[in-house]
């Protein structure tokens, strides 16, 4: 039984953008104005590219732009990339996400892949250096603009993410107990997205299935690995509080268009993304695995949906 939450599609998209606020705020506190500049660049690019493609496809531009889906994808991508990445990284990524991730499939509702993650994967594969260099300290607006528009060198201000650093150190033969595996900034950002996600569940904009299954998948695999050898595998709580975990659990894996829609299917889908994220983090070549895990599972959605149909009344 349900009460209608009486939100239309535009309001849903807007609510999701608002819910990102806490996590974005936390990122701002630690990384500074770069976060804001990236989000602004991404939003402008999304609106321009989406408008251009809608008019090429002879579709109503204003109605589709105002549904907010392009802006949402842009914001998700912008907060996934380093706040000091050069301006063309985010512009290229968003353009790729909108064109190849969404419009070429027929626009909103027809894309099999999560556009933001498609854009992210494209950037990570093409520009690995720019995509893994994170701000080491708070940057004010002019510093951020200098860095993003390539007006000054970034070396002094940058560093790798915790997941990346741990991976490198482990490869050098170090063991977990010798490393600093905690990151205050990332923990706070993850908490921010977690709270935003809980808000979405409370507003009935997303259901609990995908986030819970996602986190369960991560917990199961990371605990198993930790149990096998606690010297080379990160404990479960670090997996949950590092990288894009909560953003992925509540905002990315739950993208309704590219996710499974049946209750049982959502559990399977979320769980397997969680499993894949840890597997890619631990055994893969990239420090974080959200984008690839989500894209891989996007492909399985038709299959999952078909085999997890609920029992129909009277059958």
């Amino acid at each position: 039984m349900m009460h209608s939450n009486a939100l239309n599609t535009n309001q849903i998209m807007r609510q999701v953008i608002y819910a990102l606020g806490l996590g974005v705020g936390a990122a701002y506190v630690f990384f500074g104005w770069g976060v804001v500049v990236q989000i602004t660049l991404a939003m402008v690019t999304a609106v321009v590219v989406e408008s251009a493609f809608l008019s090429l496809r002879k579709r109503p531009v204003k109605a589709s732009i105002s549904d907010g889906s392009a802006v949402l994808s842009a914001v998700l991508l912008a907060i996934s990339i380093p706040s000091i990445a050069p301006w063309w990284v985010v512009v290229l990524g968003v353009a790729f996400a909108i064109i190849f991730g969404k419009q070429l499939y027929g626009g909103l509702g027809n894309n099999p892949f999560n556009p933001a993650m498609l854009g992210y994967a494209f950037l990570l594969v093409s520009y690995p250096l720019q995509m893994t260099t994170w701000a080491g300290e708070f940057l004010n607006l002019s510093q951020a603009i200098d860095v993003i528009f390539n007006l000054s060198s970034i070396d002094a201000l940058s560093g790798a993410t915790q997941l990346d650093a741990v991976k490198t150190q482990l490869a050098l033969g170090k063991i977990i107990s010798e490393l600093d595996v905690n990151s205050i900034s990332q923990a706070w950002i993850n908490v921010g997205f977690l709270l935003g996600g809980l808000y979405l569940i409370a507003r009935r904009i997303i259901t609990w299935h995908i986030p819970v299954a996602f986190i369960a998948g991560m917990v199961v695999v990371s605990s198993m690995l930790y149990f096998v050898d606690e010297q080379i595998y990160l404990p479960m709580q670090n997996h949950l509080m590092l990288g894009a975990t909560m953003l992925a659990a509540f905002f990315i894996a739950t993208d309704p268009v590219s996710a499974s829609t049946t209750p049982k299917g959502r559990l399977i889908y979320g769980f397997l993304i969680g499993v894949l994220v840890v597997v890619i983090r631990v055994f893969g070549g990239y420090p974080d695995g959200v984008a690839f895990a989500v894209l891989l599972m996007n492909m399985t959605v038709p299959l999952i949906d078909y085999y997890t149909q609920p029992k129909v009344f009277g059958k």
Partner: protein
Amino acid sequence: MLNRSFNGGVVIDNPHPVDTVEIIPAPLPDKVVLPLQQRIGDEAIPCVEVGDHVLTGQMVAKTEDHFSVPIHASISGTVVTIDDQFVPHKSGLKSKCITIESDGKDQWIKHTGCGTDFLHCDKTTMIEYIQASGIVGMGGAGFPAHAKLEGIQDCHTLIINGTECEPGIMCDYALMQHHPREVIRGVEILLHICGAQRAIIAVEDDKQEAINSLLMYCHNDRISIVKIPTKYTSGAEKLLVKALLDIEIPSGGFAIDIGVVCQNVATTKAIFDAVIDNKPLVSRIVTVTGSGIESPNNYEVRLGASFEHIVSMASPNTNQHDVRMGGMMMGVDVEDTTAPICKITNCIFVNDAVEKPKTQECIRCGQCNQACPVDLLPQQLYWYAKSENTDKAMDYNLADCIECRCCDYVCPSHIPLAEYFSFAKALHRKTTEEQYRTDVARERFEFREYRLERNKTERAKMMAAKKEELKKKMANDKAQKDKIAAAMARVKKTKKAKNDAQ
């Protein structure tokens, strides 16, 4: 109070609540329009002619089809036309109707039924009375009441549907509150006909007054009154049975398959009138409500009176209106308010005309599958219905959709999902029919090919056999000939020997 229910459904607040539920008798209309085509079955055949004088309750059209009921004059007066008129149907098409102009006297025909001591009547007579009185399901489905009651073998439970089905409608509420005696007696009659052990009258928990009235008149311990939670689609037969008895009617089956008979309360009251007095169904209670109505209420009105006839009584405002017959969810829009009130018109919604929200793309949010009371996946069905892939839609159990529009109601993109589904169902019927026809044609063709081929090979075989036979015969013949020749030679020889001897 019942806690158990079915999955899904939506809670919709009554958009136009009222303090007291009344039944206001509407004045006799000046004329009535009686459609000959009913919800199902063949069109009825008029048995009066233009110019005839008819009495209230007199049969004006009869039917030979088992799934229809006769049609009665709902006022006394003169038949003025028998022609095509607008009827309240979603097609918006005209249909053949008998129009009667009132003489203002409302003179009734004589009618006598089983009387109050109905238990001495046999079931067949009662069912005949019910059919002859023109009773169909008054909850909106319009299924002939007698057809549900005939040939019942094992019925353990009779369910009387007093749930009102959709928010805003209150005609059944009013009926239960103001005619509890007739309803309870009607239930007893139905118990007698069905042979059921018990009857359950299901009433939604926001209709306390109705429950109180019924309890006051219910002294039969085989009849219980059960309160059920107010949520939309609990009035649907399958879901009501599930909520009350926790039994699912099998997909494609009927209530009677699991030993249950369902009737609506208004139908039950009409059955009471039919059996006790053999009084034909000539009027019904109609709710008039909506944002364009100042004081929503119920009107007891003669069948065939125009929508306007009672809408004007409910003080509508002067705005532009959208008029709808039935509920806000499953009703049909009526373009022309001169259309007649018929047996299934439980409610008339008069809403201020508003622009409908624009449809957007489906974002697969899944709100629809949470709302679906029969546990379908409307967003998948929509995907396949839109691309006219009806086979795949049938795979996703399209046939089980009850078109309740819960999915439409919760859809954030305002997609008219149920419309797509009814379209896809129609398309599927058509393609299966076509498929069947092409299959038959292909089979015929293939059989012809096979037959020709078979004839050919059989012929060849036969020829070969004949040839063989002939050969054998010829061979035989040769042997015979040789024998004859040998005999002849012997004869010749002996003759020669004889001659030589002579």
